[in-house]
């Protein structure tokens, strides 16, 4: 059994080149949106704007300026988090989503029937339908490459090693070292998803951020969808009970009805 593998994304060295986006599309043969003919988004240099079924990598650009030339430009390559406790895997009704031997989360395209429950279940908005396959798709952490000992396409392509691939143990050590280095330089650096006691049991694709998670489009405290199951079911039962009682009380055969209905059959 191999060790859990994943990504560590050091956003402080990301140059926003989007090599990860294209390398991912190349390896996974994902189509461009509308054949490549699109409109300018107007959102800095980000024209991808989201992760979805044909964009398994997305580089986010965040302009934070106080005035001309006075500020910073944050960039971050986003991807499936391969959560240790994965919401998508939890809800998937077909068994298409599995946890692999590398502790990654993979949607098997030949099993998925496109019910899209996983899309709503993912707290990060990672999954969406690939219009070509009709199934839900997302980053596989290049499962096929991993099985033959190749590094995932995106981290392999990343020119500045902002995206690093390796065993989770090793990556976490490296990430902590880098965060400490930055903190020593006075940078407000924090790791997101590197804690196995944290939300979702830790993320196998985790990040080094220099601002609040929300700034990067990440939920502060991602949760599993099942957190709502018991409560929701309980209230449903309550509601059902109330209505059941009302129905029993209101609909059961009554004497008055018997009398009123006597002419038609009650006396038979």
């Amino acid at each position, binding site marked *: 059994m191999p060790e859990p593998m994943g990504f560590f994304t050091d956003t402080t060295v990301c140059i926003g080149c989007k090599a990860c986006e294209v390398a991912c599309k190349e390896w996974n043969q994902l189509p461009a949106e509308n054949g490549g003919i699109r409109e300018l988004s107007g959102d800095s240099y980000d024209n991808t704007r989201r992760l979805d079924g044909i964009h398994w990598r997305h580089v986010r650009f965040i302009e934070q300026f106080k005035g001309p030339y006075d500020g910073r430009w944050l960039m971050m390559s986003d991807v499936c988090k391969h959560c240790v406790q994965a919401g998508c895997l939890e*809800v998937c009704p077909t068994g298409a989503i599995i946890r692999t031997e590398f502790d990654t989360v993979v949607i098997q395209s030949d099993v998925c029937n496109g019910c899209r429950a996983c*899309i709503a279940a993912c707290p990060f*908005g990672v999954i969406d339908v690939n219009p070509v*396959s009709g199934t839900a798709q997302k980053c596989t952490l290049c499962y096929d490459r991993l099985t033959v000992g190749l590094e995932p396409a995106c981290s392999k392509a990343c020119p500045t090693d902002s995206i690093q691939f390796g065993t989770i143990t090793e990556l976490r050590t490296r990430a902590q070292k880098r965060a400490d280095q930055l903190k020593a330089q006075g940078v407000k650096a924090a790791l997101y998803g590197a804690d196995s006691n944290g939300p979702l049991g830790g993320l196998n694709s985790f990040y080094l951020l220099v601002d609040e998670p929300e700034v990067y489009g990440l*939920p502060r405290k*991602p949760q599993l969808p099942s957190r709502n199951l018991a409560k929701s079911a309980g209230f*449903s039962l309550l*509601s059902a009970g109330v209505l059941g009682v009302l129905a029993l009380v209101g609909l059961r055969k009554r004497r008055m009805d018997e009398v009123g209905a006597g002419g038609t*059959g009650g006396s038979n």
Partner: protein
Amino acid sequence: MSDTFFSGAPHWTWFIIVYFFVGGIAGGACFLAAVLDWFGGPGDRPVVRTGYNVAAVGAILSGALLTIDLGKPLRFWHMVFQSANFPAIMFKGWSPISFGAWGLLVFGFFAVLSALGGMAEEGRLRNPALRAVGGAVRGGSGLAKVVGGVAGLLGIFIAGYTGVLLSVTNRPIWADSPWLGALFIASGASTGAAALILLSPRRGANEQSLARLSAFDTKALVVELLVLVLFLASLGSVNRVWIGLWGLVLLVGVVGLGILAPLRLHIQRRPVASAAKLVLLGGFLLRLATIFASEGVDRYRVAAGL
């Protein structure tokens, strides 16, 4: 900001909305039919039979809607069997969509049986095979009561699990409140009753039955309104999502037209049919508003603060 704003919309739109609506009616109607089957009088039989018929048709329609909505409709069976390991069963107790699929399947089975029993009771089955099946569960028989009772209980489940399904996600509104299942059950009951009010007269339902249904519907609407208030209260700051078209639909369409107006009609003892129609409209708009309000939250725009 709720963490649900960073998730992605699953594109559950018209097919799912119609399914939630139809499923609610079918489940609600079936439950009411079963109650009347067990506890009602002989005069309620037409309502019972109508209820089972609505349930059967609704279950089949629901299945069809769900299947069409799939990205890969031919793989609908992957939800109940392991595709790689057929015929091993595919079931996840903690996934509403998984147990919901099973629930719908079983519900459909019992609802169809009950409907066949009802038709056998009326002597309307011509096909020998159907007649044999229908005869085994002929309406009014003990077995039919058991079958109908199971269908009725499953009916509540069908009406409610869809709300739970929405809650067991990470989407805004849906996952921000535990009350959706309860709300959908109430709505299922009220729309189920409304459907019976509208449809059972054709099968010979009498005034008394209709009056009782109407009275029940009134109570169900009150419950629904109560749960809706609880639901909105539990959303807290997420309620800002309602600012816009879907909030208007919820307020005017669901609360006004779908709950308050029929309540007023019921109380004024106006013709039950018009109240029932409004209830159905309200039930539909409830699903529509709940789903589209959340679907419309574009994770990117929220995240980017646009």
